């Protein structure tokens, strides 16, 4: 009886999730078909050819775009981690009006959408004579990551890094820099993982800032290279290649997710749910 009830539950959950993932499953199956084989997309996986992938690979300059994506994401995330861990340290440790103000001041930036302020942002960057290059979006990736990352770091330092860990270093008269980088920062690894994942995923997937600042095809990261397929989504004859491009674009993150799954799911909840 219990077994029967369990299998019914399993069937129901699987059905629910398969319906949920159906758009992705059909797209994957279609991307593995040849251009001629387009009818009946519901006959799943009745052909395996990498023809569409080859076409998409060249059309989006995959290797170039992948390298660009990696450079943008790694550079931004490294700087975000350094800047926001540093900023959170005094905010969490000092109990003054300034630190309370800074906490709210940083966090409130979260509600402002970047599309809303994009005009004055472009003006500011031009005004500072910062050349529009493939690296310009990094400035905005860092800026937009500050609210949430500093929020995570502050919460974590307050709740999990007691002041006592710095005791011996304080007695030794170690300077501020050494105390932070040698003692506090290494203890922040769990929340750093969370910052790297939450910010890394949005930066990797962002097309908006790239679209604003990058105009040369050779400098495009993956999501921006996808913009080149705009229009194909309403053209059924181009779907196989479009879907192949979609999966090529998502592949790097899916591979990383496959290996580091528990960090992705755990990272999302650090600091967001009180124990």
């Amino acid at each position, binding site marked *: 009886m219990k077994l029967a009830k369990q299998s019914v539950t399993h069937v129901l959950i699987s059905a629910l999730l398969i319906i949920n993932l159906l*758009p992705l499953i059909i797209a994957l199956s279609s991307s593995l078909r040849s251009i001629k084989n387009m009818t009946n997309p519901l006959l799943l996986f009745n052909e395996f050819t990498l023809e569409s992938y080859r076409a998409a690979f060249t059309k989006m300059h995959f290797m170039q775009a992948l390298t660009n994506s990696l450079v943008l994401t790694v550079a931004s995330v490294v700087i975000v981690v350094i800047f926001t861990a540093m900023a959170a340290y005094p905010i969490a440790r000092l*109990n003054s009006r300034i630190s309370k103000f800074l906490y709210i001041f940083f966090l409130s930036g979260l509600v402002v959408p970047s599309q*809303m302020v994009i005009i004055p942002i472009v003006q500011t960057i031009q005004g500072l004579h910062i050349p529009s290059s493939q690296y310009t979006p990094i400035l905005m990736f860092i*800026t*937009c990551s*500050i609210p949430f990352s500093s929020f995570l770091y502050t919460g974590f330092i307050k709740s999990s890094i007691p002041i006592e860990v710095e005791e011996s270093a304080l007695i030794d008269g170690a300077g501020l820099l050494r105390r932070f980088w040698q003692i506090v920062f290494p203890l922040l690894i769990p929340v750093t993982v969370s910052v790297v994942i939450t910010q890394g995923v949005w930066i990797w997937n962002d097309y908006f800032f790239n679209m604003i600042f990058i105009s040369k095809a050779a400098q495009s990261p993956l999501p921006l290279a*996808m913009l080149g397929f705009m229009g194909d989504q309403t053209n059924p004859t181009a779907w196989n290649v479009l879907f192949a491009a979609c999966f090529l674009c*998502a592949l790097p993150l899916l591979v990383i997710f496959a290996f580091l799954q528990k960090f992705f799911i755990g990272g999302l909840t650090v600091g*967001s*749910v009180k124990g």
Partner: protein
Amino acid sequence: MNSAVMKKTMYWFVIPALAFYLVFWIVPILKLFQYSVTDYNGFVQSYKYIGFDNFKQLFKDGIAGSSLANTLIYTLVFVVFSNLVSLCLAFILNMKIRATGLYRTAAYIPTLFSAIVVGFIWSYVYMPESGLLATVLNWFHLNGSDLNLLGTYGTALYAITTVEIWKHIGTSTVIFLAGLQTVPQDMIEAGKMDGANSWQITKLIRLPMLATAITINFTLSIINGLKAFDYPFIMTNGGPGRATTTLLVDIFNIAFKEQQFGKASALAVISFAVIILITTYFVLKLNKREVSA
């Protein structure tokens, strides 16, 4: 030990982040207010101050009203359904059955895709005649060919909101699940001993213990809903007519297609006021409720 040993010199550590934040975020937000009362077009640096003409025009043309209405409907539908669906999903995945890890992974996968990829794939789902929905309906001998959810004025907004919900469910489910896992098992056992049925246990023990997770998910979904841009931009470009034009799509189009930076900034100021009002109201309300719970 207290902050006596923690010197004020620590504040130097805030400088790099604060500098970026001020220069590239706060100053641009303030500049919006300045541009909003000018006829700035983005090219000619000498612009005139024209008072509240931009605002008057936005309201007279009905632009502010319609994009505000679209954004609010989008937000409401998104907040209600993304939280309901993911709360149910979290309860299901929290059951003591095997393979929940696998199910959780399956639920989480859509969140990994770029909005642009999601937009493309869902355009295919909604395509009339040969799209996924049409094909499935035809398969069941229902007339799916005429179904054009994205092209019909009355359904387009709900169709794109569905996409946002689909993409977001994985994230909120994981947060709800983490909240559910903090519910102490002995509390549930005690409830059972007292003769509570499973609905009572859910209502009286699990939901109150989920207060933090609910606050976080509601706040995040309100913020995300008000930021609606990606799917109208990628899938419908605000159409048909102005059916899916949200505030941010309008700001973007007025600025970069019509080259009216002043007018776009005025709409940005309106959006800013709306976003601040709504989020502050709900954050304060939710936090108050959570403390008293």
